[in-house]
């Protein structure tokens, strides 16, 4: 007798490919349906309703911010804001990655560096970054530098600690083996261990990007002339839900695209990484 395999229920369920796709799409459709239904009801009561814009209104908003140039500046707002925000985000996360990576790597391998920085780093990591935003704005100005600094300070301790933990997981045997193969101390750190940790850095960046977006939008909301966060908080004053929704969807898609890109990057550059991990 053939064993019956559940499609959906239980520990041993084996959904076939078509069902997997359907299952993944289902929550989106449900959510959209509820939204449209609610928007329709509200618009029947009040055609001027701002809270839940219909698809038509959202399409108009897309046209306004992403296709037509802004009547005042002549720029297309969405692109201008995206460029400004991404510049800050990429700059901040890149610098934080470099600092965090080398700090974590050296902490993981060198007891002296570990002794010097571990306690301090743990302390720093516990400062809520947004709480020191005023200090950053006072010290580094409300321009680019203040915002980039917030992203750096908010994410580098996370990266450093994660890389440190990953580096300390490298077995002593691997280090000793490298020494018996003639590696210098520098060689052990940068030629044997560093290449093994690099893919983890990309994974870590994927995780901290969420925090980085938070810091970016918060700092843009408070003081800025452009940027995605700036725009959202600006149009909030006019209750322009349609534009907010467009911007939020756009940010979400950008963040999601980054995540996918980084994941693919890991599997392209480091084919041994995820495959070797499973055993």
């Amino acid at each position, binding site marked *: 007798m053939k064993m019956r395999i559940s499609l959906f229920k239980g520990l041993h369920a084996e959904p076939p490919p078509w069902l997997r796709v359907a299952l993944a799409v289902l929550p989106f459709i449900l959510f959209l349906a509820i939204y449209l239904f609610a928007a329709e009801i509200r618009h029947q009561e009040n055609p001027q309703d701002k809270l839940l814009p219909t698809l038509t209104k959202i399409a108009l908003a897309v046209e306004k911010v992403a296709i037509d140039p802004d009547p005042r500046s002549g720029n297309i707002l969405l692109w201008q804001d995206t460029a400004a925000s991404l510049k800050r985000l990429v700059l901040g996360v890149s610098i934080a990655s470099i600092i965090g990576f080398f700090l974590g790597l050296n902490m993981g391998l060198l007891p002296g560096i570990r002794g010097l920085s571990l306690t301090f780093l743990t302390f720093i990591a516990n400062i809520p970054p947004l709480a020191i935003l005023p200090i950053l704005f006072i010290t580094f100005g409300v321009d680019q530098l203040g915002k980039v600094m917030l992203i750096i300070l908010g994410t580098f301790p996370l990266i450093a600690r994660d890389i440190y933990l990953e580096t300390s997981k490298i077995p002593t045997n*691997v280090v000793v*083996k490298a*020494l*018996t193969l*003639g590696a210098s101390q520098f060689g052990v750190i940068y*030629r044997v261990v560093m290449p093994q940790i690099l893919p983890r850095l990309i994974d870590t960046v994927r995780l901290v990007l969420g925090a980085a977006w938070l810091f970016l939008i918060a700092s843009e909301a408070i003081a800025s002339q452009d940027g995605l966060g700036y725009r959202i908080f600006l149009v909030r004053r006019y209750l322009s839900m349609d534009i907010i929704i467009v911007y939020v969807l756009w940010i979400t898609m950008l963040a999601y695209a980054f995540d996918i890109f980084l994941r693919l990057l890991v599997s392209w550059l480091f084919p041994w990484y995820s495959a070797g991990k499973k055993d």
Partner: protein
Amino acid sequence: MHKSPDEYLLYCEDVTKAYGSKVVLEDIDLAVKHKEFCTVVGPSGCGKSTLLRLILGQERISSGTMLIDGAALHQPSPDRGIVYQKYSLFPHLTILENIMAGKQLSQPLWKKFSTRKTARDEAMVYLESVQLAEHAAKYPHQLSGGMQQRVAIAQALIMHPRVLLMDEPFGALDPGTRETMQLLILEIWEKYGMTIFFVTHDLEEAVFLGTRILVISQFYIHETKPPEESHGSRIVADYKLNDNAYSTRVKQTAAFGELIQTIRYEGFNPEVKQNAHDFNLTHSDSFVTYVGEK
């Protein structure tokens, strides 16, 4: 009765290793000639791996004298190679690159590309000698345990170490692969003429491979300490073994089986405790400093 350290590759006198208050090895006296194939056996936790780590320079002795070629031990270096039980290949390098690693890491970084070709050719020779040439471009995780272990051996060999340390290198292999590997390691030992220290749990393997077998054990009666006080492990038996037969058939002979039984009795039975005066140290290089006249 002392030996002259100069005649030996490895010379230990009164070597003790303790972790905190736990003494693992106590008063180890050991002299090993160059090109010896020394197998090391003993009950679990007796300190076999610890002894290897001391010889490797991975850890420092707590007291005593330990000399290699008459000089004090230093940090791990290319003159002593190591093969661990668990596959310790570099996961981010291909098989060929893993074997090249020794040739490349000992060069400064800026010579990495100029030396690449020669390193590659040399690595290929070693890869062929462990019969893995067709797997050169794979990553370690794509190979079976036995294959990875052969790579690890080739990786250590390319440095031509004077001493090769192996800690249960075949522990995770199935019996068939194990026997092939045993013959391979004997061949390599003949060809390159290095000193081998080989830790194993398998007495048969130890007696088959070695030219000398060291039994380390914590089960013995200390000459001064009372029985209830814990003491570190010592070398409780030390035999010269027959020169290698290169055929696994010797494993079936009666003498082979008897020796294994004796060793099991002397070193592995917690019920049977020999007096420290009565250790079976019949090897001509063996000596003790901790007991006086019988």
